[in-house]
C-alpha cells in the first residue's frame, strides 16, 4: 500500500505539472532556445580566442615599384589577412562602421625610398590582440623588404619552437552551452516545485492529505521524485539535442568526450542539488509569487556568477574565484571535465562532493524552515 500511495502522489504531481501551461516551456523549450542562440553568439568569442579569424583588410597601393608590389603580395598572402576590395562610396570610417573591413592599409607613392610611410588604420573596436598581431605582421614584412630577407619566419624557426598544448580550458560554443543551459534549466525546476508546494499549502490540499494515514516522508518523496526525474529527463533531452540537432542547425561540433558514462553520476548529483534548491525555496517563500521571484533570481545569480552565461575561462581572475560560490560552477566544470578534458572520475569527484554538500545544506535548511500547515 505504501508504494501504491507513493505512486499515486507522484502521478498526481506529474499530472498537475503536465497541465500547467508554463512549466513545459520553462523546463524544456527555454534551454533548447538558449542553447541555440547562445551557441551561435558564443561562436565569435570561441573563434577569437582559439582558432582566430582573418582580419578583413582593404589594401591600396599607390606605389607601383617592385618593392611596394612585393609588400602588397606578402601582406595579401598572409594567413592573418583576408583582403577585400573597397566598396564604392565607402571611406575608412564607413568601412568599419558597416563591418566591411577591420583594417585599411595604404602604400603611398615614394614609400620604398622612405619619403612617405605606409599608413595603417584599424577599426576602433577591433580586439587589441588582432591589432598587435596585424602591426607585428606589417612590421616584419616591411623589415623583410628593407633588409632584403625572403622569409624572416623561416630564418628564425631554429630559434623559436612552439610547444602550445591542446586547449583543455575554453569550451567550444556547444560544449559551453549544452551543459550550461541544461544546468540552468535544471535549477529552474525550483519554480514549479516551490509554486506547486505553496499553492497546495495555501488551498489546503496538502493539509487535507495529512488527514489521511500517510507518512510525512512519503509525502515528501512524492513531491521530490517527480521533479528529480524531470531533471534527469531534462539533461538527457538536452544532450540528445546537443548531439543530434544543434550541430546541424549551428554547424558547430559537439562530442561527449572519452568517458561519457561519467555523465550519469554527475547528472544524478546535479539533479539532487537542483531539487534541493527547489525544496529550500519552497520552504523559505510565503507565497507562490515570492517563490517564483526567489527561484528565478537565485537561478540567474547562480548562472551569471557560475560561468553559465559567460564562459568561466574568459572571466577576470576575481570573478573566476567568486564563481566558486555558485553550485552551477561546480556542476558546469564537472560536465566540462567530461566534454572537454576527458578527465578521470577521481578528478570529477571533488566537484560532486561540493554539489552533494550544497544539496544537503538545502535540505537541512528546508527541514528547519518548512511549515506544512
Amino acid at each position, binding site marked *: *500500500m505504501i508504494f*501504491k*500511495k507513493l505512486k*499515486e*502522489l507522484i*502521478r*498526481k504531481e506529474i*499530472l*498537475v505539472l503536465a*497541465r*500547467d501551461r508554463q512549466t513545459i516551456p520553462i523546463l524544456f523549450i527555454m534551454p533548447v532556445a538558449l542553447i541555440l542562440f547562445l551557441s551561435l553568439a558564443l561562436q565569435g568569442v570561441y573563434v577569437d580566442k582559439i582558432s582566430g579569424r582573418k582580419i578583413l583588410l582593404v589594401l591600396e597601393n599607390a606605389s607601383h615599384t617592385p618593392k611596394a608590389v612585393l609588400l602588397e603580395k606578402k601582406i595579401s598572402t598572409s594567413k592573418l589577412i583576408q583582403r577585400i576590395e573597397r566598396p564604392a562610396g565607402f571611406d575608412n570610417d564607413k568601412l568599419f562602421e558597416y563591418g566591411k573591413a577591420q583594417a585599411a592599409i595604404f602604400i603611398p607613392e615614394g614609400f620604398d625610398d622612405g619619403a612617405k610611410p605606409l599608413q595603417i588604420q584599424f577599426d576602433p573596436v577591433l580586439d587589441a590582440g588582432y591589432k598587435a598581431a596585424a602591426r607585428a605582421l606589417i612590421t616584419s614584412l616591411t623589415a623583410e623588404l628593407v633588409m632584403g630577407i625572403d622569409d624572416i619566419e623561416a630564418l628564425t624557426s631554429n630559434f623559436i619552437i612552439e610547444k602550445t598544448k591542446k586547449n583543455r580550458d575554453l569550451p567550444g560554443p556547444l560544449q559551453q552551452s549544452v551543459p550550461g543551459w541544461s544546468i540552468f534549466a535544471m535549477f529552474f525546476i525550483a519554480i514549479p516545485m516551490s509554486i506547486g508546494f505553496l499553492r*497546495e499549502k495555501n*488551498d*489546503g*490540499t496538502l*493539509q*487535507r*492529505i*495529512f*488527514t*489521511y*494515514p*500517510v507518512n510525512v516522508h512519503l509525502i515528501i518523496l512524492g513531491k521530490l521524485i517527480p521533479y528529480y526525474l524531470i531533471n534527469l529527463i531534462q539533461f538527457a533531452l538536452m544532450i540528445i539535442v546537443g548531439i543530434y540537432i544543434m550541430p546541424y542547425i549551428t554547424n558547430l561540433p559537439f562530442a561527449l568526450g572519452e568517458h561519457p558514462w561519467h555523465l550519469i553520476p554527475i547528472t544524478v548529483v546535479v539533479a539532487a542539488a537542483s531539487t534541493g534548491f527547489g525544496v529550500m525555496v519552497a520552504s523559505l517563500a510565503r507565497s507562490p509569487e515570492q517563490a517564483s521571484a526567489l527561484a528565478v533570481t537565485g537561478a540567474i545569480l547562480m548562472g551569471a556568477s557560475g560561468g553559465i552565461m559567460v564562459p568561466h575561462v574568459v572571466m577576470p581572475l576575481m570573478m573566476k574565484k567568486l564563481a566558486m560560490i555558485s553550485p552551477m560552477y561546480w556542476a558546469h566544470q564537472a560536465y566540462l571535465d567530461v566534454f572537454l578534458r576527458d578527465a578521470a572520475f577521481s578528478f570529477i569527484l571533488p566537484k560532486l562532493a561540493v554539489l552533494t554538500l550544497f544539496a544537503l545544506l538545502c535540505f537541512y535548511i528546508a527541514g528547519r524552515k518548512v511549515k506544512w*500547515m
Partner: protein
Amino acid sequence: MKALEISGITFSYNPLADKSVAGDFEYALRDFSMSVDCGQIHALLGPNGAGKTTLMRLITGQLRGYGGDINIYGHKNEDKEALIAIGYAPQPVSLFTALTAMENLRIFGVMAGLSDERLKERSTEVLEETGLLSYAKKRTATYSGGMLRRLNLAVALLHSPRLLLLDEPTVGVDPQSRHHIYETLKKMNAAGMAIVLCTHIMDEAQRLCSRVTLLDKGAVIYSGDMNKIDNLEKFFLERTGRGLRDE
C-alpha cells in the same frame, strides 16, 4: 462507545506557550471537552475566531502539540484506525484544480487505502450522491462554487467514514446546492454516520442537529440538546454577545 470524545484540550499556536497553564488569549483552545455519540449530528457553533477550525484540525491530526485527549471510536486521533474513521471536508475547498473530479477522488481514495475496485465503485456512488457524475471527467477548475463544495463533500464521503467533520460545508453556495448537501448529510446520518457540523447558518444547524456545543474564545460556553433551544440564533447572540468579532 463514543464516535468522538474530546477531553481537556488546550492548544496554542505559540509553541513556547506553557500548555499546563490555561488562560489568556495565547490559547486557541482552553480545557475544551465535547463528545459525539454514534449516529448523532452535532452542531459546533461559535463566532469567527472562536477556535472551531483549530479544533477540526486537531481532531484530524493536522495540528499537534496539544494537551488533553482526542479519541475517535476508542482510538487516539493520530492512529491509523482513527484517521480512517474520519471524513473531513475543510472550510476552504481543498481540491486539486488541475485534476478532474475522478482524479481528485482517486488521489484521496488511495491515501485512504481503498482498493482499485472499491475506489471505482465508491467514486461513482459519491459523485452520484453529490450530483456530479456527469462532470466526473471535467477539470475542477471549470466547476462552479456549488459544484466545488459538493465535490469537497464527496471526497470526505469517499472512504465511507464513520465520523464526518464538516467545516462550514455550505459557505458561498446557492440554495439548490445547499439543499442538496443537507439532503446528502441526512441520508448519510440515517445510514449511521456521526456528523460534526460547523456552521454559521443557525436555522440549518437547528433543523439538522440533535446536539449543540457553543464555543467562544477557545472554551465551551454551552453544550446540550438542540431541542431545549427555541431560537438558536437568539440563543447564540445572548451567549456570545452582539459585539463584532473582527480580531
